[in-house]
């Protein structure tokens, strides 16, 4: 009796560990579902949209300009941010407001990316904290799943900030 209970328990624990590990690998190397919150990516992604973020292009260093990515916040490792990649390493970025007469430019240093939200007036991004290390990127958003009427890939950047 005791032996049977022990055997069942051990089997259950083994299966839990096995499927937990498979789930970890899938989330870590293939992709994961993310519920977005916050106004910084409107109108591309609005509050409570569900998106699918794939991990492979980050591991293979295939992130390109214009991709919407999820990254760890540089100031709080537990927090994730969702922004659009405006510039890769070596790119020249215009840091002044569009209304300014004198344009200021900066270059993205090696191993960094320049991130900006699509909602330029309500977004804390590289314009306030500077370029972000590439290694903080966690995944590229490739599909929007919910709400159903906007199912599909994401639209182009509405801000025309990508040079």
């Amino acid at each position, binding site marked *: 009796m005791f032996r049977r209970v022990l055997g069942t328990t051990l089997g259950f624990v083994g299966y839990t560990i*096995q499927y*937990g*590990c498979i789930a*970890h690998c899938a989330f870590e*190397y293939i992709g994961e579902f993310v519920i977005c919150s916050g106004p910084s990516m409107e109108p591309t992604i609005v509050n409570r949209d569900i998106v699918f973020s794939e991990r492979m292009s980050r591991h293979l260093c295939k992130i390109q300009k214009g991709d919407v990515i999820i990254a760890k*916040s540089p*100031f709080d*490792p537990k927090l994730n941010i969702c922004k659009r990649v405006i510039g890769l390493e070596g790119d020249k970025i215009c840091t002044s407001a569009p209304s300014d007469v004198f344009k200021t430019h900066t270059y993205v240093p090696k*191993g960094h990316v320049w991130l900006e939200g699509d909602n330029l007036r309500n977004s804390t991004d590289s314009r306030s904290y500077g370029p972000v290390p590439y*290694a903080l990127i966690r995944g590229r958003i490739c599909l929007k799943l919910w709400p159903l009427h906007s199912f599909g890939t994401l639209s182009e950047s509405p801000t025309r900030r990508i040079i």
Partner: protein
Amino acid sequence: MAQRATAGRRYLRAFVSGFFIAVPVTVTVLDRFAYLARVEGASMQPTASHLYEHDLLVFPVCFMYVYCPLRSPRNPQQKIIKRVIGLEGDFIRTLSYKNRYVRVPDGHFWIEGDHHGHSLDSNSFGPVSVGLLHGRASHIIWPPNRWQRIRASLPANRGPLDTEEDEG
């Protein structure tokens, strides 16, 4: 003959199921709990518990750090191992950074190699985000005659400044 075919099939099935258990479990353990890595380069050489090139270390993936391997801010493919000198909010007297004194911003820390001048560390690229941290070196396991736990210790004259020193 038929018996051998079934035996072969049974072995194949055992191999496949074992493979599907072993690979995810290994990957998860390496990602989440601990992994081994070899030290390359001389940036950690002269002091304290002596990390030499080709030492094999074990890194439990956790939050306190002494030597921390982290993704290099300059090259995301590369991992670097350094000593944590200051945590967020600490004041640091820098060695060759553009500012003489630096307050480490929130969510960052100040890292330095033990071999000053031969190490690419915060003195050249500034404070590093905690999100880049990968783990903490806990033991030297190879070569066996130097098997030991790595303890947290700051090199002499390095480390965050005291508040009194700030005011004075």
